[in-house]
């Protein structure tokens, strides 16, 4: 406790910027160009699906960070304030995804059978064609699709930048009203964030198989993204050691809480995943069952079982340990592992739509697109953090947050 108080009195400077920013942008750009080449020269369908996984992975973490931030504001939480700037930065990277969305747009025909003139629609016949027609008439048509995308990115950008700019302004002025503004704005924004991420999941991922629907699908995508956001926050916090970086004032109690939240949302992911599965499995309706049928029987079966064991059972029992959650380095290893599992989860959601009964396969664009989108996103986040404080230095509760102990 005393050490945290003494560090608080040391002046915390602005983040000078990281040499890794150029590296992230460079590697990201090279990988994106490679993925683009893969799309135009190689297997366009595989490249488009790889890119979609990567895009959904990184933008999900960004939006989940904004939701996390808004929830903490809504609860008027004081303990996470030392971690808040990182959440704000992660959330504020969302505009770069508007640019990165071009990659998804390029592959629309390869991805979605409902898109006009998609070659995938050739396989849909008979009554299914009629059903698809209904969906294309009411929801899955280009104009409405564009309008929805515009709404999602507008809401995400508006909320994340609004909260961040108030928080940054407080770094200069220290006005108490800015805290009040953030805490009034955040709860109002939450329903919009919840609806937009739900419908984004419907549009980008669920409509890969347009004849199948699940109302909880958005929550499933959110659960995975939210868990990944906590993992990334943990990794960044552990790595943020050194001059002018907030990692030095983060205490064991904060890591313990991050570990507890990772644990909780590992369970939450499994809970939502199972809720979706049980209803489909027990009803066993012809229009619902095939989505799971393809995944739990045949070539996809081993991966589906592995996902339950590796994304839930193993991390659940690992994170049960109190000791582990008190050790930042070890917690970071678990966080990195879960970040990898989140990718596997999205692969499991997207890839079967392409390969079908043929089962899991590897394509070189999978890692390339992942690093490409990730590199640009991380580079942009580091750019946003440059010349800024790495924690809200003049927040009225900052010292309370640094002195936080377990209640």
């Amino acid at each position, binding site marked *: 406790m005393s050490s945290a108080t003494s560090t608080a009195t040391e002046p915390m400077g602005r983040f000078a910027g990281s040499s890794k920013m150029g590296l992230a942008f460079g590697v990201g750009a090279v990988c994106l160009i490679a993925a683009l080449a893969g799309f135009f020269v190689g297997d366009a369908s595989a490249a488009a699906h790889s890119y979609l996984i990567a895009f959904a992975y990184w933008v999900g973490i960004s939006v989940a960070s904004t939701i996390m931030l808004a929830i903490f504001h809504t609860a008027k939480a004081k303990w996470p304030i030392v971690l808040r700037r990182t959440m704000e930065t992660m959330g504020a990277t969302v505009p770069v995804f508007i640019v990165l969305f071009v990659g998804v747009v390029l592959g629309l025909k390869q991805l979605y059978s409902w898109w006009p003139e998609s070659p995938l629609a050739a396989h849909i016949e008979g009554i299914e064609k009629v059903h698809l027609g209904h969906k294309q008439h009411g929801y899955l048509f280009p104009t409405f699709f564009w309008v929805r995308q515009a709404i999602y990115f507008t809401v995400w950008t508006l909320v994340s930048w609004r909260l961040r700019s108030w928080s940054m302004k407080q770094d200069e002025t220290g006005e108490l009203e800015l805290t009040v503004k953030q805490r009034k704005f955040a709860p109002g924004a939450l329903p919009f964030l919840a609806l937009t991420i739900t419908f984004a999941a419907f549009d980008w991922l669920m409509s890969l198989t347009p004849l199948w629907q699940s109302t909880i699908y958005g929550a499933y995508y959110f659960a995975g993204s939210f868990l990944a956001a906590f993992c990334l926050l943990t990794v960044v916090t552990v790595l943020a050691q050194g001059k002018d970086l907030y990692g030095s004032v983060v205490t064991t109690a904060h890591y313990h809480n991050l570990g507890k939240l990772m644990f909780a949302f590992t369970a939450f992911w499994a809970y939502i995943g*199972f809720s979706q*599965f*049980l209803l489909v*499995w*027990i009803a*066993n309706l012809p229009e619902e069952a095939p989505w799971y049928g393809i995944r739990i029987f045949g070539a996809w079966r081993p991966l589906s079982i592995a996902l339950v064991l590796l994304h839930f059972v193993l991390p659940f029992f690992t994170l*049960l340990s*109190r000791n582990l959650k008190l050790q930042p380095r070890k917690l970071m290893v678990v966080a990195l592992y879960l970040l990898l599992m989140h990718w596997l989860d999205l692969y499991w959601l997207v890839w079967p739509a392409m390969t079908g009964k043929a089962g899991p396969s590897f394509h070189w664009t999978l890692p390339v697109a992942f690093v490409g989108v990730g590199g640009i996103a991380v580079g942009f986040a580091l750019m946003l953090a440059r010349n800024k404080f790495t924690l809200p230095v003049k927040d009225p509760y900052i010292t309370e947050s640094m002195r936080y*102990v377990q209640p």
Partner: protein
Amino acid sequence: MEAKVLDSWVLAEFATPDILVDATNQMREKGYQGMDTYSPYPLHGGSEALGLPPSRVPFIALGGGLTGMCTALAMQTWMNTIDYPLNIGGRPLLSLPAWIPITFELSVLFAAFGIFFGLLGLSRLPQPYHVAFESEAFRSASTHGYWLGVPFAAGTDSSETMNQLKALGATQVTIVTGEKE
């Protein structure tokens, strides 16, 4: 002779929880053992000050949870496949997905039982009699008093202990002697 049937404690009251925790720390460092703290609400840093080992409740909870899980799976397997097999919509008799909710609930229930009864057992509660109850003033521990109890062998001299407690800021110090639990 007396030490076999009698239990003696020095009880000291402190004005605030912080002084109590501080005093407990110092008494422990001086080598006093078997002490206990009493306060109307959970004491921050109390167990650390007493030098208590990590709680065993989590392991009891885990044991309870696993017992609940096995009980639920065994119960459903027996009921659905042996005792009363029913064909429901052509599903296999052993349908794990349908059993998960009950397995989950029973795991939680048994883990909760483990925590509740494990905690009671480890804290040796309910405790209808304790030597400290011999002191009338000690009643304040359930309303506004912060107490530290230091055990000593009945019949030995406790004035040194009492002086040290007073030096650490105790507002009142008393000796209680009664039957062993």
